[in-house]
């Protein structure tokens, strides 16, 4: 039985690096730029450029490559699945057929592209949460969305909900692991059989988990109220966000890179 404790998707890993110490807002915007850029890529050359860019920022962040790979592991299956769907269901010139299954040249092309594109999206998005603490992330989002407050957009509430949700992910994983272990110790067999049997086998984990989660949520709400939390109005900050020259620089460079890759790709296109 493999437990969940082998790192989880995009959980924050505090390391002292230039990327970690950037303003969360610049990281959020830069990530959006990267995601857009990756989404527009079509040619091998574009994928290669973004790949190199990713390797570069990972090495600056001083996170080990093995960690990046293992933290994206949970979505590999999803990516593989999408690729396979594209492989078999894209119409075009057949290169191989077997019974009703048919692989077309277009299908192959799409499968590789979609797979790579999804993988890169996951890697870039995961990189943001690996290098930014949940609190910073929420503060950054709140600040980015605050111009919308005038129109009644609940920026603070959303940010607070996100902080709490993100804050609870590790707790939830710990609890899940603990309950799984307890049930396995009583002989529960959690990873055998077909999907339906597995789902049923998970009831002994899910029921206690729900009980614990509701209990925790209730405790948290009480604790927040007891400390006089009433929402965003009039709340001060411990660490105000600070936008530095580096942030502007990083953002400009990312933007330029994305534009350059897209333009060059257009020109290289036949």
């Amino acid at each position: 039985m493999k437990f969940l404790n082998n790192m989880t998707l995009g959980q924050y890993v505090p390391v002292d690096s230039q990327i970690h110490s950037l303003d969360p807002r610049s990281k959020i915007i830069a990530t959006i730029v990267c995601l857009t850029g990756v989404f527009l890529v079509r040619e091998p050359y574009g994928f290669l450029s973004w790949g190199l860019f990713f390797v570069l920022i990972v090495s600056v962040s001083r996170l080990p490559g093995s960690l990046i790979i293992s933290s994206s592991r949970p979505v590999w299956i999803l990516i593989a699945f999408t690729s396979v769907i594209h492989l078999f269901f894209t119409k075009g010139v057949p290169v191989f057929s077997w019974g009703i299954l048919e692989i077309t040249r277009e299908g192959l092309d799409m499968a590789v592209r979609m797979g790579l594109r999804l993988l890169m999206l996951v890697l870039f998005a995961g990189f943001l949460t690996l290098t930014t603490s949940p609190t910073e992330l929420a503060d950054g989002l709140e600040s980015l969305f605050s111009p919308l407050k005038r129109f009644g957009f609940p920026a603070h509430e959303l940010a607070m909900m996100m902080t709490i949700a993100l804050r609870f992910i590790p707790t939830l994983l710990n609890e899940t692991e603990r309950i799984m272990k307890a049930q396995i110790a009583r002989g529960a067999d959690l990873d055998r059989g077909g999907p339906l049997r597995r789902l049923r086998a998970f009831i002994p984990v899910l029921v206690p988990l729900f009980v614990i989660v509701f209990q925790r949520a209730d405790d948290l709400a009480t604790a927040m109220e007891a400390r006089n939390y009433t929402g965003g109005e009039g709340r001060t900050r411990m660490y105000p966000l600070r936008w530095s020259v580096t942030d502007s620089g990083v953002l400009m460079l990312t933007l330029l890179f994305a534009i350059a890759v897209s333009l060059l790709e257009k020109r290289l296109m036949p």
Partner: protein
Amino acid sequence: MSITVRDLVHVYHPGTPLETKALNGVEFEAEKGKWVAVVGHTGSGKSTLAQHLNGLLLPSSGSVSIDGITIGPGEKSLRAVRQKVGLVFQYPEQQLFEETVFQEVAFGPKNWGFTPEEIKNEVEKSLAQVGIGPELFGANPFRLSGGQKRRVAIASVLSSRPDYLVLDEPTAGLDSSGKKQLLSLLVDLKSLGKGIVHVTHDMDLALGLADMVFVLDDGKSLLWGPPELILWELLERDIRGLVIPPLVRFAGRLRDLGFEVPLTWDPIRLAEAISGSRRK
């Protein structure tokens, strides 16, 4: 027949920035019909050790064997071992999920493939052992009181008919009468020949009830011996995370003041010694 741990090393998250060496060369032993207390400061690796004793965690290096079966990654040995060694986690009532007390306790025996008669027998026997009467067999476990839930959870481990029982802080969060009941249950189980491994912070309990005490410090075996020996060591030097029980301190002070009393954690014995020494 025993649980034998040799040179056990356990590393969490190897090869990541979160890498932690929780156990580092631990030697440990537990026998049937004996009570071993495991003590040590917080983070010393007690829970990690406990989870190795029935194969929930596998050694990074070193070996754990139970009645001659060495724990390895193979599924077969793991299942055999997990049935032999019952593990009671801290706050075991949180793992309840069935609709009735009876079904909850039957969960383990069903998983091990006991026959229907065996299941019924084991469930009734275990619930009787923990003092839950037949009138509660049909009750919803979530409606029970805290102490009752804890006892049902322990019964749900006993019903698998384990030879050893490993309990991680089983008395946490119980009031003093709940604590007493639980401990006397453990004493009974020991006299029935089960091996008890009791992870605890409470030195009074460790010294008072255990046959052997095992002290972990920073993932290493620090001390291993009968309660008396551990007490003498404790008086000699500070051991991280362990406190001298108040009664022993009291006896020690009396001795300093010239009374002839033994250093003991047993209140009755101390009282008798005091009254004896005054009459002299």
